[in-house]
């Protein structure tokens, strides 16, 4: 069952002052559609400025789209800051990269985890205490961690607290924005395993946003590849990584060093992602694309089906 559906979402931010000349816009997200199924993980991968974080914020209703709609459990998201939106936020939670910024450093771990319960008016103080203990245990922390402050914990422990806090009101959707990027490999593995365990246990839908293709491949059932605000390819995780169809996905997969081979299958990709304030005409990828032709410079390719389980936006892919 589809838990979350983004339908042709666009979000642009005005640049500079409106007083001088025509207004310029940064188009962060341009016509993105994606689904998150219940109990499944959709991964969004892309380089900086591709709009992956903005997409996550729109999915939670933290950012209104300029056009397009967000359906959660089949219904449009209520207007931001309305009472119904607040009530719904209980169902959808966010985990992100910077745990020190996410946790109020003047609150103890127990108080931090109990806060969302109080906000949503869940249970009385005794049952909240009980629930906090369960949550601490569930994310692999002991009750003695409850009395500590965020700065007394390691990065991995703090990410566990953030996760416990997100799980407290029993959400059905978790949006994870770079949840393991700041962590060391061994701790990253702990958190990834924990996320997958929690998902299996609670049947959570996960929108997992990361620049790290390895991690995204590992956790995701479906992968959405974004470039300059647009989806260039999406489909089943294995298919996308093992047989990427879009030239950008091919380059991204080949730029991931393999163990033990390194860059054995490297496809050279010149240049760097352009700024979203200055988007090229036609296909946004054409200035870096090794296969670009005239049609790519002139018209924007649509996201069209390739086989039954994949969509690709490229003029040169035979649909």
């Amino acid at each position: 069952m589809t838990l979350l559906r983004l339908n042709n979402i666009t979000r642009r931010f005005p640049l500079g002052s409106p007083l001088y000349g025509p207004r310029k816009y940064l188009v962060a997200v341009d016509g993105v559609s994606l689904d998150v199924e219940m109990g499944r993980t959709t991964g969004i991968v892309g380089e900086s400025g591709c709009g992956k974080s903005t997409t996550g914020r729109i999915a939670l209703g933290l950012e209104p789209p300029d056009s397009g709609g967000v359906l959660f459990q089949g219904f449009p998201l209520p207007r931001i800051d309305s009472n119904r939106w607040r009530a719904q936020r209980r169902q959808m939670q966010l985990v992100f990269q910077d745990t020190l910024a996410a946790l109020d450093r003047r609150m103890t771990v127990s108080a931090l985890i109990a806060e969302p319960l109080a906000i949503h008016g869940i249970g009385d103080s005794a049952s909240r205490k009980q629930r906090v203990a369960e949550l601490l245990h569930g994310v692999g922390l002991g009750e003695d961690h409850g009395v500590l402050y965020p700065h007394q914990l390691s990065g991995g422990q703090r990410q566990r607290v953030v996760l416990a806090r997100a799980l407290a009101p029993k959400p059905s959707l978790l949006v994870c924005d770079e949840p393991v990027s700041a962590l060391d490999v061994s701790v990253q593995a702990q958190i990834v395993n924990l996320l997958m365990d929690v998902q299996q246990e609670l049947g959570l839908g996960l929108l997992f946003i990361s620049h790290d293709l390895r991690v995204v491949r590992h956790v995701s059932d479906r992968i959405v590849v974004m470039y300059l605000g647009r989806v260039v390819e999406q489909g089943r995780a294995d298919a996308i990584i093992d047989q990427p169809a879009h030239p950008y996905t091919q380059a991204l997969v080949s730029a991931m060093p393999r163990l033990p081979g390194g860059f054995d299958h490297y496809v050279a990709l010149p240049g760097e992602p352009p700024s979203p304030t200055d988007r090229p005409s036609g296909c946004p990828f054409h200035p870096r694309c090794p296969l670009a032709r005239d049609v790519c410079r002139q018209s924007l390719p649509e996201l069209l089906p390739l086989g039954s389980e994949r969509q690709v936006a490229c003029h040169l892919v035979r649909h």
Partner: protein
Amino acid sequence: MLHKSFQNSAGAALLPAHGIGASATKPAISIAGLRVAFGDVPVLHGVDLAVNKGEALGIVGESGCGKSVTWRAVLGLLPKSAEIGGEARIGDLDLVGARQSVLDRVRGGRIAMIFQDPASALNPVHRIGAQITEALRLHRGLSGAAARAEACRLLDQVGIAAAASRLNTYPHELSGGQNQRVMIAIALAGRPELLIADEPTTALDATVQAQILLLLKDIQRDTGMALVMISHDLAAVAAVCDRACVMYAGQIVETAPKHTLLTAPEHPYTRDLIGAIPPSHGPRMRLTAIAGAPPQRNLPPGCAYAPRCRHAIAVCRTSRPEPRQVAARHSVRCLRLDAGTYQ
């Protein structure tokens, strides 16, 4: 230029075998018993390491393992409060405790270093041309048109297009990847025997990371300088280096040729570290999560990894392992290996 495959790379084969050949060619740098402490907190517990001429060596480990501190101590880049012991020989010169005037000539000259964040390593108010020619003047005595021509050649070597016009740009006008290329050009200005790259691509996007790693590899092979790449990313090290050292809690726990280290690691930490990396292809298996965290201040009485090690036995908690040669160029610091009871 970046599109080379490394199938024919003779990097490893050309290197002298450890032990036999090492006496014939002097290493580019040899570090022995290097110790560092900040106040009463020791961070390096005796690092022994030789980097051969023309070799690309990777140093891998998690935050706080001492991989950066090792090289900062060698180059005298640590704050005054650091207590440093041991030696680091480059030729006949010991860099540990060397005078500032000596270090000034070595740094940027015989040994160059690049860092994670190029934007903060470059001076924002000077044009990049001036920053490259400064290095050329200091270390090669070039000035005027000769320096400018050489700066132009260096930019070209690091893959910056339209090099002559780029000399007049400021760092903020360039992207992160281009700034890292400029840093590499500055590092190459002194024709170093050894380039130390400390997490050179951690701040860069995936496709740009690959470009820079392959550029470093190309330059190392073309110039014949030695390269030390410090990274938390074993896969990045695999892409560039011939040989790799794994560090844990201020010690080297395993050293081996890259392929051996990745396909037949002996130290439990190395194995766990490899198991913790999500594979890029093949079936998806549960990741190895290493329980606990590295020791924060003082080492435990036995092996530093014992509290987290799945193979630890009683002796691991009481006595400290010494490095043991298990094959040519492959050494491991593990007591279970010594006892022959592991595996």
